[in-house]
């Protein structure tokens, strides 16, 4: 019995030796110099529920990250790697989560839409120009690869122009944005063209060009990070920013 198992052991050893020899002969070229071992990339996700609230209500922001040492949310600051928090912004807000770790940086974004009350009949304090600008001036949306102003956006341009005519002291920036498809350099030129389109449309109805700055962000600063048409449409826009 013992003798037999020894025999088996010897056979196994011999087989292993043969296999190793075989493996040696199959040895191929060593791989190119190995890159530094990649640290695990951080992952990050953030969501807000519900994603639409009336002004004054609150929503729950929930985020999760992994492999991150430094996690922050714009407007909130440094936060725990995972957690949740009640938020109650006065205006629609984009929560931009940045998770940094040894393996790089991961970003995630959640958009909370705040519905303004239909008519703030008796505002207790008179709103500032900036408040009014944020509430009234609407972004202009574009078709894919296009920089001309769509017919369905003309009304928004007219409304924006009307407000800006009434508030002639306000200076502002128009940011041109593109969706994530398309190439970096071309998208920056396209975003520039979109910002210029909005500027030209406003100038055509009498808004002084000296009040308007334009900047293109191409696909560098998306509002929405998902890969679907509703998100892409969110990102193809001329975005108005009040200039203090």
């Amino acid at each position, binding site marked *: 019995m013992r003798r037999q198992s020894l025999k088996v052991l010897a056979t196994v050893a011999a087989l292993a030796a043969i296999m190793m020899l075989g493996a040696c002969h199959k*040895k191929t*070229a*060593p791989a*190119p110099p190995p*890159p530094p071992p990649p640290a695990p990339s951080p992952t990050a996700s953030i969501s807000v529920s519900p994603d639409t609230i009336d002004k004054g209500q609150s929503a729950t922001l929930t985020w999760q990250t992994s492999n991150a040492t430094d996690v922050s949310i714009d407007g909130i600051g440094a936060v725990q790697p995972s957690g949740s928090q009640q938020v109650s912004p006065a205006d629609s807000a984009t929560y931009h989560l940045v998770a940094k770790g040894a393996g790089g940086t991961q970003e995630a974004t959640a958009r909370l839409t705040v519905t303004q009350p239909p008519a703030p009949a008796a505002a207790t304090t008179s709103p500032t120009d900036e408040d009014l600008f944020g509430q009234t001036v609407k972004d202009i949306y574009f078709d894919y690869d296009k920089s001309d102003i769509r017919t369905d956006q003309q009304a928004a341009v007219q409304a924006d122009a009307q407000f800006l005519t009434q508030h002639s002291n306000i200076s502002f920036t128009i940011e041109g944005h593109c969706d994530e498809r398309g*190439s*970096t*350099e071309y998208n*920056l030129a396209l975003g520039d063209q979109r910002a210029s389109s909005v500027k030209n449309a406003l100038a055509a109805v009498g808004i002084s060009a000296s009040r308007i700055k334009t*900047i293109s962000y191409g696909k560098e600063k998306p509002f929405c990070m998902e890969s679907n048409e509703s998100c892409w449409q969110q990102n193809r826009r001329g975005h108005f920013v009040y200039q203090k």
Partner: protein
Amino acid sequence: MDDTDRRAQRHADIVAKLLGVLILLSLSFLPSASFAQDWVRTGSGLGVEKVRLAVPDFKPSNSDPQNTALLKTFNDTFWSDLDNSGVVELVSKSFYPLQVPGQPAEITFPAWNSPPPNAAMLAFGNLAVAGGKVTVQGWLYDVKNTASPQVLGKQYTDVPTIDAARVIAHKFADEIIFRLGGGIPGIAESTIYFVSDRTGHKEIWAMDYDGSNQRQLTHQGSISLSPRISPDGSRLAFSSLTKSGWDILMYSMDLNRPVSFPRLGGTNLSPAWSPDGSKLALSSSRAGHSEIYVCDASGGNLHRMTTGKGPDVSPTWNRKTGAQIAFVSGSTGLPQVYTMEADGTNQQRMTDQGYAVSPNWSPNGQFLTLAWIRKYGPGEPGSSDIYLMDIASKQWVQLTHDGGRNDFPSWSPDGRHIVFQSSRSGKEEIWEMLADGSKLHQLTFTGRNSQPNWSWK
């Protein structure tokens, strides 16, 4: 007609075009991997035998304890440089005799020049650390010519560091590739510039051509894009978001800091050096629409070259003559690649359909490489792939097929390799391949990396 038939028809077309286009490329045919693919990989040099080169590990020539680590780096780098070059066929180490030479006296020719190794050439040598210096002796022998075998004998001395061992391996590999690759200098000492977001901001970085020695150049803290190194390697032009908008910035590689370049106004993107280093082409919206401009390397003497209404970006000069510029224009809808004379005349549309961007002109002046989504639109799930186009005939061949979004191809100085960005691994990283699409490998792994630009030499 079902899908397979259409593919077969398509392949016949591609192969016909390939033979026309690629016969001009002095590339070597590398048989494709045997896994199932629905496309054909081919190239020029069909049936051309490459030189069989045996590269036994270099040996230590004394017993200094530092030898082991330096030899490991040297041998790995040296093998990888020769393997990536595409000009030689490395003989598998399993065919080598047990006794490998460290110097000429130790060679037994029959053990190398007949099967199983059946090598035509043998690269061998030794390394030793002594007196605070590392010395590498290397030889290239024509082992079929036993009467007068030496093709090359070199000795290198440097500080005994891992970096120095890698540089010496690159230098000796380049000497061998120069001799066995038709007198075209090797690329092992070249540099790739790229954009990385690993610090949290998109900054310009540089790395050796094989992905080692990655280092950060700019610290703008905003968004920096489109690095383009000057032909002499002394200056790097790039586009960066500053307080006044997108400006062209200039970084001195000699001074290791930014140097002044005039603000042009508007959105300024995608600088490109003329091959003599005296001029830059760029895209500027200073007069309204984004158009191609040419100026002196100092930023002076700015001239507008295009006048369309669509956005014009991403110029690249004919690297051989400096007489033409290729660029991207959206003047007819989706972006297409055009060429024009360097004075703006004779504009020619090169791409017939789809979404074509990021042209890069080959060092020999004959080809463009570009990123192209040929099938574009609803129900056409086209992918962005790297293509090669023969400029004279406008015939093209697709180089990448393996998924992901592929963009920003850039030629190596020897015209045998292309570096590009791809999302095939799940996020944007830098990849490199031979210009026939083979020998694909990933160079970056940390953060998101994009827009590679290969040095001119």
